[in-house]
């Protein structure tokens, strides 16, 4: 199977290449990137063929592509890949507007290619164990959920994350989608209502929000919160956290998906003090699932709809913060 990487704008692309290279029968045919400095650097450090244009990569007729461009370019790039007949794994958020996301769905359906949204946390064994625990009824009726996906400001890795024109939003759009997707997947319900505070308390140099706190009501009545802030300082020992506490009538489950780490102090490393994870990368399982669906021509385990609904929760947070009243994400059309 021949897979191409459509843009290295998103920093996850680097990990995805490693994930793909661990899967037998997969050939990473190269990557396209229109940024010459990044193209040269990635080409050298990963030993990958570099295409100056996305058309050049797609002309090689890859079986599938990973779209890891800036959020605002997903629509155009997914449409190009679909027209070229390549199955797509698209980085989250699938888009920054409802219109873009719907246009992507249309392009995908017209060409008949498969589309998977990159939600790696569904493939974390700890998250899967939590889901099993909830669904088996072990915790009893779920009473409340507290979720945290806060991080450092990603702009020091890639500037566009904090540029409104390319990212479409800041912390709230970047991080809400992970937990919103896990809530939909674990509790098998839609998000009914979103109340939120969205602001930029941390970085006056950027034109996007750097903090977002969401208070949701899931459709089945469960109250659930999401902390989507870029509230960790740059010298924090790791990029951030994915945490969730599920309070049930019979028991409580406490998830800290990246808890498995060594404490490491090193000279000359990126961080003087670092939490170095020792568990397998959830993105590996995600990539294997994507490759399997391309190979078997089966429905990917995470769909466009999943990506769309999670995005609508984030967009509802912006709307709710602005209006000062709760917003139903499904009212955004």
């Amino acid at each position, binding site marked *: 199977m021949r897979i191409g990487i459509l843009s290295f704008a998103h920093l996850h692309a680097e990990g995805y290449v490693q994930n793909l290279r661990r899967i037998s029968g997969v050939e990473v045919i190269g990557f396209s990137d229109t940024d010459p400095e990044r193209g040269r650097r990635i080409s050298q450090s990963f030993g990958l063929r570099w295409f100056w244009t996305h058309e050049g990569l797609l002309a090689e007729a890859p079986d599938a592509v990973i779209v890891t461009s800036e959020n605002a370019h997903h629509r155009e790039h997914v449409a190009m890949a679909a027209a070229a007949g390549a199955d797509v794994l698209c980085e989250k958020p699938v888009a920054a507007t409802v219109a873009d996301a719907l246009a992507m769905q249309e392009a995908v359906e017209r060409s008949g290619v498969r589309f998977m949204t990159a939600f790696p946390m569904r493939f*974390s*064994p*700890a998250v899967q*164990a*939590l889901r099993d*625990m909830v669904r088996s009824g072990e915790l009893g009726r779920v009473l409340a959920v507290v979720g945290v996906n806060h991080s450092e400001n990603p702009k020091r890795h890639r500037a566009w994350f904090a540029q409104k024109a390319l990212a479409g939003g800041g912390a709230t759009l970047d991080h809400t989608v992970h937990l919103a997707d896990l809530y939909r997947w674990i509790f098998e319900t839609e998000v009914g209502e979103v109340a939120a505070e969205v602001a930029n308390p941390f970085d006056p140099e950027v034109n996007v929000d750097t903090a977002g706190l969401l208070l949701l009501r899931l459709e089945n009545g469960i109250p659930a919160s999401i902390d989507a802030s870029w509230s960790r300082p740059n010298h924090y020992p790791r990029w951030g956290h994915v945490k969730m506490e599920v309070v049930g009538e*019979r*028991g*409580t*489950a*406490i*998830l*800290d*998906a*990246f*808890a*498995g*780490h*060594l*404490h*490491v*102090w*090193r*000279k000359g*490393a990126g961080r003087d003090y670092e939490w*170095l994870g*020792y*568990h*397998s990368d959830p993105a590996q399982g995600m990539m294997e699932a994507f490759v399997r669906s391309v190979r078997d021509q089966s429905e990917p385990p995470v769909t466009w709809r999943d990506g769309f609904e999670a995005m609508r929760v984030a967009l509802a947070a912006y709307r709710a913060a602005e209006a000062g009243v709760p917003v139903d994400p499904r009212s955004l059309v």
Partner: protein
Amino acid sequence: MKIGIVGTGTMGRVHAAAYRRMGAEFVGAYDRNPEKLAAFVGAYTVDPFKSFEELLMRVDVVDVTAPTYAHEELAVRAFEAGKDVILEKPLALTPDSGRRILEAARESGRRLFVAMVVRFFPQYRKAAELVHAGELGRVGVVRLKRVLFPPGPGWYRDPEKSGGMPVDLMIHDLDYARWLLGDPVRVFARKSPPVEGEVLEHVQALLSFPDGRMALVEGGWAYPAGYFRTALDIAGDRGLVEWSSDQPPPLATLFPAGEPAPEVGLPMAGLEEDPYELELRHALEALERGKPFDVAPEDALAALELALAVRESAASGRPVEVAS
């Protein structure tokens, strides 16, 4: 490769469950105790073998999870029957017994994997990778901890059968210390005063390596029922690594307290990947592809000798020189 398990106690169950999850060709088991065997084969839906001879006829790989005192006889007979052997740690009760197992493997041309599982715990592996890659500079002081509650009634409590706490438990971290620093030159150990009628025992061993490097290895059957704590602390001149089982696990639960403690505790909480599965997967893959094992039989023998040196020093109160 058809796998048969001999010995259906705690470790037999752990290995059987791992084979099941891996989808390995685990076909049957033998145990001298027919009731234990019946319960075991029922739980894992495999064949009960009427004798060890029948097991040897039916499988390609013999997984010996019988008590330590039975290791030599079972492993040697498996090699004589031309089988590869996966052998639960510790290798044997004495170096001579261990050497006879290694010799039987050599003579048969078959392979011996001693299941030193700590090398397959992801955190211990990651820390060793940092050390071996020179990320910490020159390692000067290593601290390793492994303390749990005493074993319940059974052969573990009898040092004649299990080797006692240093040989059964501390051997994990003694092996890990060797993996990081190589062979020590001297061992000095202190143990807790005896407690009448109990197997409570806590041992701290100071390992001296060439060039002034050192390690403090702590092991114990000493905690209240249900507790099991492990930790590593590796300090170099350019970096430091800490980890402790006190750290929160990826998934914890709060339920009403009062669950009964298991017979022998296993440090499973907090792990996403089962190290026993990683270990057995490695062993089977190495056997299938003719690749070297991450733990050589000679490592298992050296770890046993080190554990016996710790036991001897703890008993005599004097340092023991370790022959390299």
